[in-house]
C-alpha cells in the first residue's frame, strides 16, 4: 500500500478544514484509515481530541459514519454495534474504535480488556500522543518517564509508561500491532491486514503531538520517524501466531544503526530539561524494551509457529 495508492483513493476519511491543530498526528492516522477502510468502517469515538476533530454540528470534519461515546465506553459500544450489524446482515462492516491513550490505556482500560477477552470482532486503533492532550497536556499512563506535562510540570513524570500493545497481546487476541503516523504505508498495510482478521484487533499508533510535546507543527512526521530511527518506538506486528518486527524498524535491531537518541529528544520541549544521566537512563530502558521485543519474536517464531 504505497503512498500514491493511498493518495488515489476515493474515500478520504478527513475532510478539508476540520478543527484539528496544525500538524495534528490524528488527522494523518484518520486519513490513512479513511483511505483504506473509508467505505467499510463504522467509527466509535470516545472523548478525546477526535471528539473535536470530528467537527461542529451540523457539519462534520470526518468522512465516516461515527458514534461519539463516553470516555470509558468505546470498545463496549463497538461490541453492541457489531452485534446489531451482524444481526442486520452487515457482517461485512468493520467496526473501528478510534481512541486516544486515555480512552484505551487508562479510563477505558477495563472496557478494552473486556472486549479483547470476548474476542469481539472489532478493530481498536489507539492513537497515542502520550498524554491527555485534549484537556491540555496532562500526564497519562503512556506518558514517557521524565516528560513534562501540566500535571508533571517541573520534575517530569516520575513513573514509567505502560505498554498497551504488549498488554493486549497477552489477552491472546488474534491481531496486535504497533504503528507510527510517520510510516503511512506500514500503517495502511496493518489496517488492511487487521480488517481481514476475524476477532479482536488492536493497532497502537504512535502519534507525536506538536503542542503537547512542544515541537514545531511542521515537524510531526520528522519526530515520528526519529522515534523509530532512534529505536525509541518499535514497530512490530502479531498476526495469528506470527510475531515479527516490521520493515521500518528492522534495521534498528542492530543498536549501532540507531540514530543518537538526542536527535529525537532535542526537538521536544517536554524533554528539554533532561540531564545527560536521564538520557542514558532512557537509552537503557529502550535497550531493555528491544531485548523484550526480540525475545518475543524469537519465542513466537520458535515455539508458536512449530
Amino acid at each position, binding site marked *: 500500500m504505497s503512498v500514491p495508492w493511498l493518495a488515489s483513493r476515493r474515500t478520504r476519511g478527513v475532510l478539508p478544514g476540520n478543527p484539528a491543530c496544525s500538524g495534528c498526528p490524528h488527522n494523518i492516522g484518520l486519513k490513512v484509515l479513511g483511505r483504506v477502510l473509508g467505505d467499510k468502517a463504522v467509527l466509535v469515538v470516545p472523548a478525546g481530541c477526535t471528539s473535536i476533530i470530528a467537527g*461542529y454540528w451540523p457539519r*462534520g470534519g470526518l468522512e465516516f*459514519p461515527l458514534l461519539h*461515546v463516553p470516555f470509558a465506553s468505546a470498545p463496549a*459500544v463497538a*461490541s*453492541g454495534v457489531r452485534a446489531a450489524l451482524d444481526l442486520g446482515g452487515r457482517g461485512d462492516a468493520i467496526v473501528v474504535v478510534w481512541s486516544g491513550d486515555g480512552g484505551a490505556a487508562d479510563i477505558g482500560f477495563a*472496557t478494552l480488556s473486556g472486549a479483547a477477552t470476548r474476542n469481539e470482532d472489532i478493530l481498536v486503533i489507539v492513537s497515542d500522543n502520550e498524554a491527555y492532550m485534549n484537556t491540555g497536556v496532562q500526564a497519562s499512563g503512556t506518558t514517557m518517564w521524565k516528560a513534562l506535562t501540566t500535571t508533571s510540570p517541573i520534575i517530569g513524570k516520575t513513573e514509567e509508561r505502560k505498554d498497551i500493545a504488549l498488554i493486549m497481546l497477552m489477552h491472546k487476541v488474534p491481531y496486535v500491532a504497533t504503528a507510527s503516523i510517520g510510516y503511512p504505508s506500514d500503517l495502511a498495510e496493518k489496517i488492511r491486514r487487521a480488517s481481514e482478521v476475524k476477532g479482536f484487533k488492536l493497532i497502537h499508533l504512535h502519534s507525536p503531538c506538536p503542542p503537547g510535546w512542544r515541537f514545531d507543527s511542521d515537524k510531526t512526521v520528522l519526530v515520528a520517524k526519529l522515534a523509530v530511527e532512534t529505536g525509541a518506538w518499535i514497530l512490530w506486528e502479531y498476526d495469528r501466531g506470527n510475531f515479527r518486527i516490521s520493515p521500518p524498524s528492522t534495521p534498528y535491531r542492530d543498536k549501532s544503526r540507531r540514530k543518537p537518541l538526542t536527535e529525537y529528544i532535542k526537538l521536544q520541549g517536554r524533554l528539554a530539561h533532561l540531564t545527560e544521566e536521564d538520557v542514558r537512563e532512557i537509552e537503557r530502558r529502550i535497550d531493555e524494551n528491544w531485548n523484550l521485543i526480540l525475545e518475543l519474536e524469537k519465542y513466537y517464531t520458535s515455539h508458536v509457529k512449530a
Partner: protein
Amino acid sequence: MRVKVLMGNTAVAEAVRMAGVEVISAYPITPQTIIVERIAEMVERGELKARYVRVESEHSALAVVYGASASGARVFTATSSHGLLYMYEMLWWVANSRLPVVMAVVTRAIGPPWNIHSDHQDALTVRDAGWIIGFASSVEEAFDMTLQAYRVGEDRRVLLPVMVALDGFTLSHTCEPVRLPEESEVRGWLPPREPLPFKLEPGSYFAVGNLGPDEVTMELRWYIWRAMERAKHVIREVSADYARRFDRSVHGLIEGFRVEDAKYLVVLAGAWSGDAMEAVDMLRDEGYPVGLVRLRYVRPFPVEELRELASSVRAVLVVDRAVSMGHMGVIAGDLVSAVRGKVTVKNVIAGLGGVDVSPDDFKTMIKGFIEEYESGALDSWFYTEWYMPWVRRG
C-alpha cells in the same frame, strides 16, 4: 393464557424472551443476577435468538446495549444498586440519544454498609436522567411492565429508555402465579422495533453526538421534556390496551385503592404497596376513611392524577423508601410540588436498607398520621418523620 408460578426475576426474563429482544448485556449483581442467568440460558438453548454479551462492568453493559440500540436492535439489560450507580454516565448518554433501551432495576440499598436488601434509593436516585421509571408491585406486573416498556419506549411519540423497577427479593426472588399470554399473541401486540431514521452503516456519512451550539443541547433536553409529557398519555394508552388484550385490571400511571370516598390518602410505590393496602383494609374496618394510591410510574410523574385525588382529601401521607438527604423523601418531594400546597402532606421514611415493614407497621403509621392531623398536630403543611420502631426515643 396459562398460569405459571414464577419468581419476579424469571418473569422478567420470560417477558424479554417474548419481546424478541436481540441484544442483551449485563453484569451480575444481587438480586438482579437471576434475570440475566435465565436469559443467558435461553440464548444458549436457542429459545431466544439473540446475542448475549458478557461484559466486565455495568458501565459496559449499558454501553453495549447503547451501541446495539443505536444500530437498530431491540435490547435489554438489568442491574441493581451499585451497578445502576456505576452506569450513571451511560444512563444520560442513552436518554439524550433517545434510544428505547429497556432495563430492569431490581431495587437494592446502596452501601456502605453492604446490604443486598431492597429499598428504592437506587432507582429514584437516577430519576432526572430522562428515563421512564415504572415500579412493579407484583410478579405479574413486573412481567407486564417489561413488555409494555418496549411498546412505550419505542413509540414514535416517546423514543425514551424505560426502567422497570421491582423490589429485590420481595418480588425478584418470590414465586407468584403469573397469567402468561401466548407468545404469538404477544408478538402480535408488540411488533418488531421500527427501523431508525438513520443507519449507522458503512457509506452513510453522519455522526451521532457531535459537538454543537449550546442551544442544541438545550433544545434536545426540551424535546425529551416534551416526550416525557407525551409518555404519560402513551403509558395510559398502551397499558389500557394491554389490559384489554390480556385481561388485566390495573393500568395507567397510578393504581387507586379504596380512594372513592377517602378523606385521607396514602401514597407510595413498589412491592410494599400490598402490605399498605392490607393496612388500609383493616383501618376501613375500624371506620377510618382512608384510601391508597400506588404510583406505577414515578417518571413521568403522575401530576394530573395526584392533583385530582389530593384535591378531595384532607391530608396525604407519603411513605418513602428513598430519601433526598437535606430535604425529604424522594416521592414526597415530588408530590408536594405537584399538589402545590393545596393539601397537608406528611412524609414517613421507612424500610430503608430492606427493613421489613408489615401491614401492622403501616397501620401504626397511617393511624398516627390521621390522629395527628385531626388533633391539629400537623401544623406545618409538610412534615417528614423516620419510622424506626426499634429505636427508643428519649
